């Protein structure tokens, strides 16, 4: 009779039966009645007396009640019915103890809410694939690898080789985020977009909402041949009036007309998770829009492109990676002048080192760990509360057992009650989640990119919370549930009405809980302490330059349609003008900003008189700076001279190197006058600057060099302008604005910030980790302290009678106090010992997490030291104090009670 639809039908009927049990019952009673009556009538008819007929019928038919029970079980779903009953009962119990209920639910809501928030963040930043793309699971990030294994972007020729020769890829697109200025003259507005390969949308599988995406004839590689643009749905609505006939119209981008060919689908925000871009322009248009010389687009050294590949169906990332590595290996031989030692690899999108996810991956993973710790503390707390309640309810349970309830049935009752608590807590928690999730915005780097973080709830977060709910119910409820089923009938009922004189087993259990509570709190406290100290220590590292009293302004002159010469001229004139502004001490400009967010670039060098080891990495980081840059930064000269305006395009190329450079390549000997080859020319070293920090405060000394702005500045470089002031740097901002307008009214000063603030960005991942852990560590500690106190207080209160007897027998209050506190401290001590071991292990594993895997400052760690004895000792001392207080206060109250009263208490 296995027949699914029939079984299902029966199931629904039975489910329905749960809600109308009385009617079915009455109906069945009447049916039985008539059955019996007919049976008796037959008996009478066959010649029996009425009583005899009735007797035989009853014997024949079996028990009335059993029949009813069997019928009832078939009429409804007994399991569900019991559950409903338990729930109803549980709700009543919760209502009867509002204090207990509130504490338990709030604790649970806190734990579950925090963990769900952390998960929501991870989901938004790391797990959620790009919006609006087709089959994101087939996409992978393609990065080049330096000989040291650091990840760097790709060049356009490399891109073409990869695209044309990789058989396991269905497609390979590339992109480069860029700032655009849209509109006319000084009405221009800055918009973030991406230069993309023509097949970008095709590879990602993005559908147009209006018009079309780039067509195959726009996939070409002729510089400047594709004046077209695709805009985002967001931009189309906010700036183009959601014009349905927008395709074919033009917008003015970087002072050039571009034809809008289409609008991307609303879910698509670009190719970097959590960042929203608004314009997509073919990469070849970069030569026009950014005045980058066409040959540079085809230069293998110009590694400016991030790659995204689509694997062929059925191809694993490992297979594709192997094919790519083999191709990169051939390229490193064929193009040895630029690619020697280089390789390339594929990463799942979620592991991409670019964008917010690259920065936040480490901190968020640690955050998740801390949340689980917090949740564990919450579980212990709730388990404690439930256990305490179970003690109070021992009599109730015993009575039910005595009346024939099954032990499993009782355990289920307790589990249902904890499930009710957890579910209520989880509901509260998930309601708070979207609200708490918004805090992520505050934690994101002070970048200029616009973020598209959808931190609302989604199914995955709800499912996660539901799963959490079950885990917590089990973790917190199983032990109390098992105990409730094991109540010793005789002993409890015979205890003469003394409620809950805690038995040995229960006492031991509570001791374990206290110890584990202490251990968990220690782990939380130690981790938070280590992070905060690590952060403080890093912050105190001397960057080797002085960022205070410096105003930093970044310009995107290319977006104003200036060519290279005009840009250099602009800088020189702005410098002269700014020098005469009162309050200004010094003015300089450069390509890269030290300790900034933007990637730093390197050059392949050859150094006269230095024989590199085979495969040695001679890609050395550099900055392109104006005369006076080092002086403005207060980076001291060790030897030689600074650049001057005479080091121009026509004169002999010159270079300033740092001390590490000298130590490594010139064996510490005087380098002045030595020659170094880069950018196809020979440079003469004219000066040596002190080492400073370039990418991360925590980085170890690296070789570094500076070249003159006039000689090396190229169209694809950035421009940062610095003004050192006597007082608050922001005071010169109005002057800067007006001077800029005097030179070129079309140029707008968008981002001007004090340099000291800007370089805070390099501390960003550590700052996030430290501040989150401080909050969560504090929270865990508070919870643990509360839990510790309540358990201690409760167990002392349970011993009131015992204490009364001791005192009646002559113990002094001080003896009682000493005893209770001693026992409490013993437990705390055990917990601390276990916690210290655990904390050390946890810290070790966190220390292995490096917060960046991009080429700059690789290996900079979130945690510098795992064995700071001060932190361990401080945390332990603090917890000891809490434990002592938690034992002392209730013990004092117990000891101050009149023994007679204590004995009469029940």
């Amino acid at each position: 009779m296995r027949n699914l639809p029939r079984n299902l039908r029966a199931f629904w009927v039975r489910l329905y039966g749960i809600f109308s049990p009385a009617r079915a019952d009455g109906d069945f009673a009447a049916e039985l009645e008539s059955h019996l009556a007919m049976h008796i009538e037959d008996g009478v008819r066959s010649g029996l007396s009425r009583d005899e007929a009735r007797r035989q019928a009853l014997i024949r038919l079996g028990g009335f009640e059993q029949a009813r029970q069997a019928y009832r079980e078939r009429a409804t779903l007994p399991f569900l019915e019991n559950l409903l009953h338990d729930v109803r009962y549980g709700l009543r119990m919760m209502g009867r103890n509002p204090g207990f209920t509130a504490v338990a639910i709030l604790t649970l809501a806190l734990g579950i809410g925090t963990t769900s928030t952390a998960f929501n963040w991870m989901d938004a930043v790391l797990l959620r694939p790009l919006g609006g793309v087709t089959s994101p699971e087939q996409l992978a990030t393609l990065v080049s690898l330096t000989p040291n294994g650091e990840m760097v972007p790709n060049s356009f020729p490399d891109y073409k080789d990869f695209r044309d020769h990789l058989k396991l890829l269905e497609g390979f697109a590339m992109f480069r985020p860029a700032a655009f200025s849209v509109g006319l003259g000084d009405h221009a507005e800055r918009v973030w977009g991406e230069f993309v390969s023509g097949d970008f949308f095709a590879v990602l599988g993005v559908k147009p909402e209006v018009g079309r995406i780039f067509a195959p004839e726009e996939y070409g590689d002729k510089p400047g041949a594709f004046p077209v643009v695709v805009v985002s749905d967001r931009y189309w609505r906010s700036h183009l009036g959601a014009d349905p006939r927008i395709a074919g119209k033009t917008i003015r981008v970087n002072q050039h007309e571009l034809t809008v060919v289409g609008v991307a689908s609303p879910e698509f925000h670009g190719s970097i998770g959590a960042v929203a871009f608004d314009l997509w322009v073919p990469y070849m248009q970069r030569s026009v829009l950014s005045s980058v010389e066409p040959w540079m687009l085809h230069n293998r050294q110009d590694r400016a492109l991030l790659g995204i590949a689509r694997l062929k169906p059925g191809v694993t990332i490992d297979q594709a990676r192997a094919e790519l590595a083999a191709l990169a290996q051939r390229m490193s031989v064929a193009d040895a002048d630029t690619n020697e030692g280089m390789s390339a690899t594929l990463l799942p999108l979620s592991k991409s080192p670019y964008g917010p996810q690259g920065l936040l991956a480490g901190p968020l993973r640690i955050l998740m760990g801390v949340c689980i710790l917090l949740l564990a503390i919450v579980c212990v707390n709730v388990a404690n509360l439930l256990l305490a309640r179970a003690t109070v309810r021992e009599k109730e349970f015993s009575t039910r057992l005595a009346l024939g309830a099954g032990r499993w049935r009782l355990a289920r009752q307790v589990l249902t009650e904890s499930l009710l608590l957890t579910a209520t807590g989880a509901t509260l928690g998930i309601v708070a989640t979207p609200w708490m999730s918004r805090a992520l915005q505050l934690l994101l780097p002070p970048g200029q990119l616009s973020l598209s973080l959808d931190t609302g709830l989604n199914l995955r977060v709800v499912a996660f919370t539901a799963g959490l709910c079950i885990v917590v119910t089990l973790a917190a409820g199983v032990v109390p549930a098992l105990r409730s089923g094991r109540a010793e009938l005789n002993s409890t009922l015979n205890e003469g009405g003394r409620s809950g004189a805690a038995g040995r087993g229960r006492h031991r259990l509570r001791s374990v809980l206290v110890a584990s509570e202490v251990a968990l709190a220690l782990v939380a406290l130690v981790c938070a302490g280590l992070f905060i100290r690590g952060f403080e220590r890093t912050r105190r590292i001397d960057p080797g330059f002085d960022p205070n009293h410096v105003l930093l302004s970044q310009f995107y002159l290319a977006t104003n349609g200036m060519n290279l010469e005009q840009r250099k001229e602009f800088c020189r004139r702005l410098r002269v003008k700014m020098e005469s502004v009162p309050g200004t001490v010094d003015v300089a400009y450069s390509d890269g900003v030290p300790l900034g967010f933007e990637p730093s670039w390197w050059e392949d060098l050859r150094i006269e008189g230095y024989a590199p080891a085979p495969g040695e990495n001679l890609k050395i980081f550099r900055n392109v700076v104006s005369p006076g840059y080092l002086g403005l930064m207060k980076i001291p000269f060790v030897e030689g001279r600074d650049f001057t305006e005479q080091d121009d395009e026509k004169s002999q190329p010159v270079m300033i190197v740092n001390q590490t450079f000298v130590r490594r390549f010139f064996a510490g000997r005087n380098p002045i006058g030595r020659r170094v080859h880069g950018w196809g020319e020979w440079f003469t070293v004219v000066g040596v600057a002190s080492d400073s920090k370039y990418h991360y405060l925590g980085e170890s000394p690296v070789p570094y060099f500076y070249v003159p702005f006039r000689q090396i500045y190229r169209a694809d470089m950035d421009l940062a302008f610095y003004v050192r002031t006597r007082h608050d740097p922001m005071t010169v901002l109005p002057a800067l604005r007006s001077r800029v307008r005097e030179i070129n009214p079309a140029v707008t000063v968008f981002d001007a910030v004090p340099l000291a603030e800007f370089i805070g960005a390099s501390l960003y991942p550590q700052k996030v980790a430290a501040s989150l852990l401080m909050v969560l560590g504090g929270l865990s500690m508070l919870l643990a302290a509360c839990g510790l106190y309540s358990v201690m207080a409760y167990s002392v209160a349970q011993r009131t009678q015992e204490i009364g007897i001791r005192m009646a027998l002559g113990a002094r209050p001080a003896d009682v106090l000493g005893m209770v506190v001693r026992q409490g401290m013993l437990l705390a001590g055990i917990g601390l010992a276990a916690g210290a071991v655990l904390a050390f292990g946890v810290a070790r594993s966190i220390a292995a997490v490096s917060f960046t895997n991009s080429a700059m400052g690789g290996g900079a760690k979130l945690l510098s030291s795992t064995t700071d004895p001060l932190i361990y000792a401080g945390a332990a001392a603090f917890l000891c104090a809490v434990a002592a207080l938690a034992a002392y206060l209730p013990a004092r109250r117990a000891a101050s009670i009149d023994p007679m009263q204590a004995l009469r208490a029940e």
Partner: protein
Amino acid sequence: MGNKADVWQGTLALMVLKTLETLGPLHGYGIARRIEQTSGDLLSLNYGTLYPALLKLEQEGYITSTWGASENNRRAKYYELTSAGRRQVKKEAADWEQTTAILARFLAPAEEA
């Protein structure tokens, strides 16, 4: 087992369905009687066995029930086959015959082997 065998669930369902097919609408007492008589009083049905089985068949949609009056004007609940029930009898009966036929071959005297 006593001298009166208990009925097992699967076969009881078929007996009930077959009874209703043969006799038309019938109350629980009538069904029980009929099954006991047909078995030559080898089977004995008590309430706790019969009624849950009837309920199950009803939940599965093979039979329906209505309250009506019995031969001697007593209120009784009458069970009746539905069309699904009628199909089910045929199918079950065929299955059962096949099963017994197969088993019969196994239990047949060994000389055939």
